[in-house]
C-alpha cells in the first residue's frame, strides 16, 4: 500500500507541483527587550519529491520557519502553502498531510516504542488494528523491532531519533519536515538516519530538512537554501552553489566555503555554530 501511494506521489512530483510555497513570510516576537524579527520576509519554493536542505547558523530562523510551516507557530505576515494547502487557514488539513520530527526528539519516555507509534496512528484516524500493523511496519523500517516493547527512556539517542522519524511517518505524509535530525548523533547513527531519509524520499515523500551539518546537506539534498538573520542569502543545488563561488574565487570550494561566504562569517567566527562531520557510507 505504501509503495502504491508513494508511486502516486512520485507522479505528482513530476507534475511540477510545489510541496512548499512561501511568500514574504515574517515572524516577529515581542519580548521585554522589544520586538525581535526572527524571519524577515522569506520567499521559498520546494518542489514535490525533493529533499530540500535549509541551512543556517544558530538563531538564523531555521526552526522558526519549520515551526511556522508545520502549524506550530503563528505566522506574523506573508503566506505559506504546504501540500497545496494554506497553513494559516487550513491548519488541520495541513497536519493530515505532513510529518514532523523536531530538533529535540519529542517522545514520551514512559511509553514503549510500539505504544508511541500506535498512539500516533490512532491520532491520525487509523483503526486500532491498522495502527498496530503500521507500527510493526515502521519499527521494522527503522530497525527497532527488537526494542519495540522497551520503554523509550532506555533507548539511546540514535534509537530515539529513529523512533521520532518513524512516528512522523505513521500516516504516510506527503511532506516530511525534519528539524536537525542528526544533531547530537554519532557518525554511525547519522549515516543510518541519512539512509532512512533517502529511502523515505525514494518512496515519494518530499523532505524539508534543516541542518547545521554542511556535509549532510551536500550528501542528501537536491537543493538547499541558506538563511541568515531571518533572510535567505543563497539558494540552489549544492553543485551550482559551489560552482558559482568557485568561478568567483577562481579555486576549488566546498559547501563550507559557500556557507561562510553567504553568511559573511569566517572560520574562527563560525566555530561552534556549524560543524562538519565525516560519515561516509
Amino acid at each position, binding site marked *: 500500500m505504501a509503495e502504491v501511494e508513494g508511486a502516486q506521489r512520485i507522479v505528482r512530483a513530476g507534475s511540477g507541483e510545489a510541496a512548499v510555497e512561501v511568500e514574504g513570510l515574517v515572524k516577529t516576537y515581542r519580548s521585554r527587550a522589544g520586538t525581535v524579527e526572527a524571519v524577515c520576509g522569506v520567499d521559498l519554493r520546494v518542489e514535490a519529491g525533493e529533499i530540500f536542505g535549509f541551512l543556517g547558523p544558530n538563531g538564523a530562523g531555521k526552526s522558526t520557519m519549520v515551526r511556522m510551516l508545520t502549524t506550530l507557530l503563528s505566522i506574523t505576515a506573508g503566506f505559506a502553502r504546504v501540500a497545496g494547502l494554506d497553513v494559516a487557514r487550513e491548519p488541520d*488539513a495541513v497536519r493530515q498531510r505532513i510529518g514532523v520530527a523536531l530538533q529535540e526528539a519529542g517522545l514520551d519516555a514512559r511509553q514503549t516504542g510500539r505504544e508511541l507509534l500506535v498512539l500516533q496512528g490512532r491520532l491520525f484516524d487509523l483503526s486500532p488494528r491498522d495502527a498496530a500493523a503500521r507500527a510493526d511496519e515502521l519499527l521494522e523500517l527503522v530497525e527497532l523491532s527488537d526494542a519495540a516493547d522497551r520503554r523509550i527512556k532506555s533507548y539511546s539517542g540514535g534509537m530515539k531519533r529513529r523512533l521520532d522519524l518513524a512516528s512522523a511517518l505513521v500516516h504516510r505524509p506527503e511532506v516530511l519536515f525534519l528539524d536537525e535530525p542528526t544533531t547530537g548523533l554519532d557518525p554511525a547513527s547519522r549515516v543510518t538516519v541519512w539512509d532512512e531519509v533517502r529511502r523515505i524520499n525514494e518512496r515519494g515523500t518530499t523532505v524539508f530538512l534543516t541542518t547545521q551539518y554542511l556535509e549532510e546537506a551536500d550528501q542528501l539534498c537536491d537543493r538547499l537554501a541558506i538563511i541568515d538573520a531571518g533572510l535567505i542569502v543563497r539558494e540552489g543545488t549544492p553543485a551550482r552553489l559551489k560552482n558559482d563561488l568557485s568561478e568567483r574565487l577562481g579555486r576549488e570550494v566546498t559547501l563550507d566555503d559557500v556557507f561562510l561566504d553567504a553568511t559573511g562569517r569566517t572560520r574562527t567566527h563560525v566555530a561552534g555554530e556549524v560543524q562538519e562531520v565525516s560519515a561516509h557510507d
Partner: protein
Amino acid sequence: MTDALVLARRALREGIRTPEAIIPTLFIPLFFLVVNVGQAARIFPGSTTAFLHGQGYGAFQLPSSMLLAASFGSAALFLIEDIVGGYFDKLRATPVHRSALVLGRLLAEGLKTLLIASVIVALGLAFGISIASGLVGFFLLIGLTAGWAIVYAGFMQIIALKTRSAAATNSAGLVFFPLLFLTPNFVPRNLLTHPMEVAATINPVTYVMEALRSLILQHLRWQTIGLGYLVVAVAAAIMLALSVRVIRNYD
C-alpha cells in the same frame, strides 16, 4: 471524543507507570484527616453534636480530605514534562481537535480520582464512618470528587500552558489552600463568624463540600447535591473554554 479517549488512555498509562506521583495524593489527605480529627474530635463528640447526625467528627472531615486529594492531581506537571520534552509539539502537530489535547488528561485525572476517592471512602468505612445516603450516595460522592478533580486539573493545565514552568504551576496549586479553608471546613456554615460565613458563601468550593458532606451524613438531599454538581459543571465548562482558547493561541 475518540482522540480524547486515546489520549486519556495514554495519560492513565503514564500515571500507572509513575506510582510515586500517586502515593502523596493519597497519603497527604489521609494525614490531614487524622490530624484534624485528632485535634477537634473531642470538642465535637458524635453523641451530642447535632451537625454530625450521629456520626463521629471523622465523617464531617472526610469531604475536606477528598477535595484535597482531588486537588493534588499531577496532570499539569505531566503536561509540563510533555511541553519541555517536545512531545506536546508532536501532539499539536497531529490533526486532533485542540480540545482533545486538554480533555485526554482531564478524563484520566477524573478516572484516577474515582479510584483514589474510593480508597479514601473505603478507609473511612474501615474506621467506622458510614455513607448515610447508601450506595447511590457513594457513587454520587466519588463522582462529585472526580468532577472537582477535573475542574482543578483543568485550572492547573491552563497555568501550565501559559507559564510552561513546573515551578509556576506547582505554586499555582497552592491556591487551593485558601479556597479549602474559606469553607465550612471545621464546622457548618451557620456556626462560622460573620466574615467567614460571607467568605464561605461566595466561595464555590463551599457548595461542593456541603454536597459531599450531605452525602456522608444525611439521606439524599437533592438540592444540596444538585448545587454541588452545578458548581462543578459550570466551573468545568468555563475551564474547558479557557483551556481551548489558550491552546489555540499557543505559539
